[in-house]
């Protein structure tokens, strides 16, 4: 499937609509979204709370099924996949960075980072070796066997980033990754995400309500009331993502 990713855009969204039933009322969270995100792009989905940005992220990452329309990642229609296919797809192609870090509290840093590889069925030795390499890259060489509760927020998020990138996914979704961090740590963490993305030509979908975050993105998509109101491309990244201009 990696071959598919060489050609065409990383993410394609067509006529996406999402409605929720709240009691007797029907709430339209996304009206009709059409979007193409190129490979290697760092794309920020920006909007205030209630704008539908989180809903869009859920659809893009196939955490929820859309009411109408479809989402393709790497040319594969993920919105139509069943649970099993999605699990395999997530193992191979998707990474997540969460606002609340979402590390498993009873696992050490190494074990947390290695978790996506556990689901793939990799042996303990090789996956922990990989995890240690990743932790060294995010600067946590001396935190291998610490538990999340023994680390600061910035350190936990770096573990989260190591976990998101360990399986070399094509697309990494980051949901307010710096929402719980101070401005200094925010800079470090964002630099780290950007660094990984550039190095392996990975696509990042960043969701934030913080205007500062738009600074780190190549492209800013602004959502208001479930509709894209602006789509600003700061750095043009061509469709194959091989060369990055204006940087």
């Amino acid at each position: 499937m990696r071959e598919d990713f060489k050609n065409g855009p990383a993410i394609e969204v067509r006529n996406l609509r999402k409605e929720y039933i709240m009691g007797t009322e029907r709430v339209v969270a996304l009206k009709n979204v059409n979007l193409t995100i190129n490979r290697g792009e760092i794309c920020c989905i920006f909007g205030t709370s209630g704008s539908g940005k989180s809903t869009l992220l859920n659809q893009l990452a196939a955490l929820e099924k859309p009411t109408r329309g479809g989402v393709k990642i790497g040319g594969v229609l993920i919105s139509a996949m069943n649970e099993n296919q999605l699990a395999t797809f997530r193992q191979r192609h998707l990474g997540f960075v969460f606002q609340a870090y979402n590390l498993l509290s009873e696992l050490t840093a190494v074990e947390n980072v290695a978790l996506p590889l556990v689901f793939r069925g990799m042996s303990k030795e090789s996956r922990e070796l990989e995890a240690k390499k990743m932790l060294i890259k995010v600067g946590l060489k001396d935190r291998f066997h610490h538990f999340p509760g023994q680390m600061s927020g910035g350190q936990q998020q770096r573990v989260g980033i190591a976990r998101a990138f360990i399986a070399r996914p094509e697309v990494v979704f980051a949901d307010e990754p710096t929402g719980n961090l101070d401005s200094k740590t925010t800079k470090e963490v964002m630099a780290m995400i950007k660094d990984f993305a550039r190095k392996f030509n990975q696509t990042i979908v960043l969701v934030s309500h913080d205007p500062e975050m738009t600074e780190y993105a190549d492209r800013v998509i602004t959502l208001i009331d479930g509709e894209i109101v602006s789509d600003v491309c700061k750095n043009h990244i061509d469709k194959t993502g091989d060369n990055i201009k204006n940087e």
Partner: protein
Amino acid sequence: MRFSDILRMCFENLKRRKGRTFLTVLGVFIGCVSIIVMVSIGVGMKESNDKTLAEMGDLTIIEVSSQGGKNINGKTVKLNDEALKTISAIPNVTAVMPKTSLDEFSIKMTAGINDRYKCEWATLVGVDLKAMQSMGYTVLDGKTPQDGGYTVVGGQFFAYAFTDSFMPEGRNQIDRWSNMSEDGKSENLPDPYFNPLNTPIMLHITKDAEDKNELTQELKIGAIVKEDYSKGYETSEGILMDIKDMKALIAKVKEIPVNNIEYSTFLVKTDHINSVQEVEKQIKELGYGTYSMESIRKSMEKSSRQIQMLLGGLGAISLFVAAIGITNTMIMSISERTKEIGIMKALGCYVKDIRLLFLMEAGSIGLIGGVVGCFVSILASIGTNLFSMGAFSPEGTFTLSMIKDALFGGKDITRLSVIPIELIVFGILFSVLVGLVSGYYPANKAVKITALEAIKSD
């Protein structure tokens, strides 16, 4: 996910919530112990029943009588040589022994100088002496006579049937009962008046008390057989005579030809205790009446099984309560771990792995409870048996070999609680099954948690 990883995760999770795991395991443990202990008491009852029956006699013998029954053609059935052949041909029948007796005549026996020793009511039967071995008679002393000639076989307590006519009433008998131990075994028996093996016996047969036409016949006892009530009272205090001699005697006293004599009963031996029922049924179909220990055995077995079921049922209730405990614990654990499961799914964990993880956690609770429960049950069983064997009473002596007897049983030991290996295997498997079944619903609940839970902030 690798199985080893699921296993590790499962035990990490159980370890993480030690207190809760311990309490849930305790529930299974109590359930498992109560089932095993209850059933073991039932098995112990069955064991002692079987011992009682075996002491009563050979369980594979069927006694057949004619009772004036009719066969399918409407003819009155007769116990003659033809019937002997028919019954011998039934599958699983290993031997048939014809028996005759002279019930309607008065038979007396005398022995010793001047007929000093008398037996007023002698039991005399004619059997096929050659078939004695295959019928399962146990010869205690002497050699079974093979060719008749009024050399006969005496019952185990034959000589005790005689009274001493030189002594006054009340002191003219050797009492073989008062020295008998509680469990019916004859220990330290006093010697009878004479040794039957080297004392000639005189038989006196008369039609009734007034009959002066007494028929006498001298007998020589060739062997002594062990008492066995399933074969007849004659094995205790009577005499077994070869069927040919008996027929000749009958012909003489009844004044009829030898060929017209019918047998009074057949003893039919089957190859196994389990064939008794079928053979008995086939003989009944021929029109004969039958009697065997089977009906007693069946009813004893039935009642002990009923008690076993009742006791097991009581134990099952506590295991059922434990099952609810497991389900409860698992549901709690899953609602606590909703976010964790969501994260696992978002990172690409398969649904089947999550289900397996939770089923294994529940199954492990069952397994641990079952294994510990079985272990403790065995200890409890040993303790109970030692107690009933008198190991802890002040006058009792305790030896290490008693533990072995308490666990595995022995020839002369009546155990209160018997745990066969099957019960242990069953106990463990059943506990695991209870764990899996009670984990099934929670595991399916866990599977339904979506990856979206990972995104939700709390």
